């Protein structure tokens, strides 16, 4: 009996020939990431108490993305602690205000196919787009990894997610993953690994695929993985990294089940306020007036996301009474948007460009919502109070849907503004 890709990676990291679902074992981590919020400020005192340093400074990536730019003295202190830690332990892969950690792990190719990567944040799953097993953990888990390079894992069952067909024009990976979450529920993939494959995945670029692995967190999964194919190899080659395709699951691997979807049947959808699995067609969302539109986060502010928004916003203006804010997922995304003219289009439409970082998505950075505000956002979560006041409301949608809603002043099917037959 063969193993799934996730099982193979865990077996290798645990020094075993074979692992099976529900085995619990200690594994060696190939690369780890921690950020300013859940990172050194939380675990450094304990690390000192243990009397040890960082197990391998070259395998630890640190990103300051939650409290940048510092909006108050408390935030500035958190960033200082992060920098002091980086200096003390000689961490070379440190990035402050350069982008969101999950975006940078992929952009800078800090993970490789077949690696076991553990990040101190729930959206660490994003990096599974490059064919590694990417797992998110909390601060004490990260303390253990930083001190010893090891952690414990329970081997998850793998669900195969096969997406046939191709996404129609105006329909995105965000619409696809929201559709899946809407059907399976926010605990539909609890403790599982989702392994993506099929014609539609083969046709997507790395950024779009990464929306799927990113939002595996919103379906309860331990990880989401896209086995490395020609697109992955080309993406890494652009970064001077030479790898073969794969590894992949064995032919006789045992999947718990297969979820099959037809991408060509997916339509633009939105998640209604407070529950990201309360998903409806954008065309059926009603016309509740919006006060805010937000293009941001690791989920929805990569270059391709900004370009999608620009497709809608070209030659249009944001509706009066709506504030459209754009927080690029990385400086590289902003630079590319400046070079291609996308940034100019967004600004001409009336967008307010914010600094790169996690921003308003976790309700920490700049641009948070006040009571009574209604926002549509390219981010991944909309639990009550997520982006600010518990009396605000957040709709989730694709960059097309957010841009189109910003123009209309309420949720609409964005294909109306893309000259696409609906």
């Amino acid at each position, binding site marked *: 009996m063969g193993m799934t890709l996730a099982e193979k990676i865990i077996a290798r990291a645990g020094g075993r020939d074979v692992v099976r679902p529900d085995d619990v074992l200690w594994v060696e981590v190939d690369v780890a990431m921690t950020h300013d919020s859940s990172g050194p400020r939380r675990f450094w005192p304990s690390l000192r108490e*243990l009397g040890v340093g960082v197990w391998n400074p070259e395998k630890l990536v640190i990103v300051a993305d939650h409290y940048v730019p510092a909006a108050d003295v408390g935030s500035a202190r958190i960033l200082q602690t992060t920098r002091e830690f980086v200096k003390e332990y000689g961490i070379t892969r440190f990035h402050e205000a350069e982008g969101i950690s999950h975006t940078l792990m992929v952009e800078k190719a800090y993970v490789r196919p077949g690696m076991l990567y553990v990040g*101190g944040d729930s959206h660490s799953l994003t990096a599974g787009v490059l064919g590694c097993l990417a797992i998110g953990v909390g601060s*004490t888990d990260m*303390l253990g990894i930083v*001190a010893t390079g090891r952690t414990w894992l329970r081997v998850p069952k793998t669900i195969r997610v096969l997406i046939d067909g191709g996404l129609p024009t105006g329909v995105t990976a965000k619409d696809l993953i929201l559709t899946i979450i809407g059907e399976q529920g926010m605990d539909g993939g609890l403790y599982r690994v989702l392994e993506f494959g099929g014609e539609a995945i083969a046709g997507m670029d790395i950024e779009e695929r990464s929306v799927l692995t990113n939002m595996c967190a919103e379906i*309860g999964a331990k990880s989401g993985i896209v086995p490395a194919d020609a697109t992955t190899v080309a993406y890494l080659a652009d970064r001077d990294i030479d790898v073969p395709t794969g590894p992949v699951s064995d032919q006789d691997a045992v999947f718990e089940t297969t979820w099959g979807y037809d991408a060509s049947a997916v339509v633009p959808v939105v998640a209604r306020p407070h529950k990201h699995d309360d998903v409806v067609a954008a065309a059926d969302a009603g016309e509740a007036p919006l006060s805010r539109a937000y293009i941001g986060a690791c989920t929805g502010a990569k270059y391709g996301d900004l370009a999608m928004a620009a497709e809608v916003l070209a030659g249009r203006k944001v509706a009066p009474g709506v504030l459209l804010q754009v927080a690029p997922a990385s400086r590289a995304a902003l630079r590319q948007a400046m070079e291609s003219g996308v940034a100019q289009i967004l600004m001409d439409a009336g967008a307010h460009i914010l600094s790169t970082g996690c921003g308003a998505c976790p*309700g920490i950075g700049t641009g948070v919502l006040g009571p009574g505000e209604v926002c549509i956002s390219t981010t991944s979560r909309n*639990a*009550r*109070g997520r982006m600010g006041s518990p009396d605000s409301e957040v709709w989730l949608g694709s960059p097309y849907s957010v841009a189109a809603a910003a123009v209309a002043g309420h949720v609409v099917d964005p294909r109306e503004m893309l000259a696409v037959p609906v």
Partner: protein
Amino acid sequence: MTIIEGKVWKFGDNVDTDVIVPGKYLIGDIDEIAEHVMEGIRPGFAELVNKGDVLVGGKNFGTGSSREVAPRAIQAAGVSAIVAESFARIFFRNCINVGFVPLECPTAGEIEEGQHLHIDTVAGEITVIETGISHHALKLPTEIGEILEAGGLEPLLKLRIGGRT
């Protein structure tokens, strides 16, 4: 701790870490955060809860972010145990790592707010004192039991690293 007795505070499915500890409080230390615990779903909870009380949740308790302060704040507010039909996986890990037993009990939905529970955490037996009805929590793997016995991951690391040197 093997025997716990306390009053039940009942919550529904998919209780998110964003309502357990809203992002705006993450800047503070654990005692400040604990004053606002569950504020997003039940304002004033920190004042209402008494030491030793028990949280009972539905499916996917603790879904959302990796913030470990979510279980820590519940613990710091005086709650002695969390019983839920299922847990979100990072929240589950975080509970174990901070030495707070997560009791995964498929029949937790039958337990009612205000009832009193007698819990044997080792046997995984949860009894409603008012009715005498017992519920069973899923057994944790031995490797996880070791972490809990040490009092959490940090005490276990101390033992292991101390033992090596």
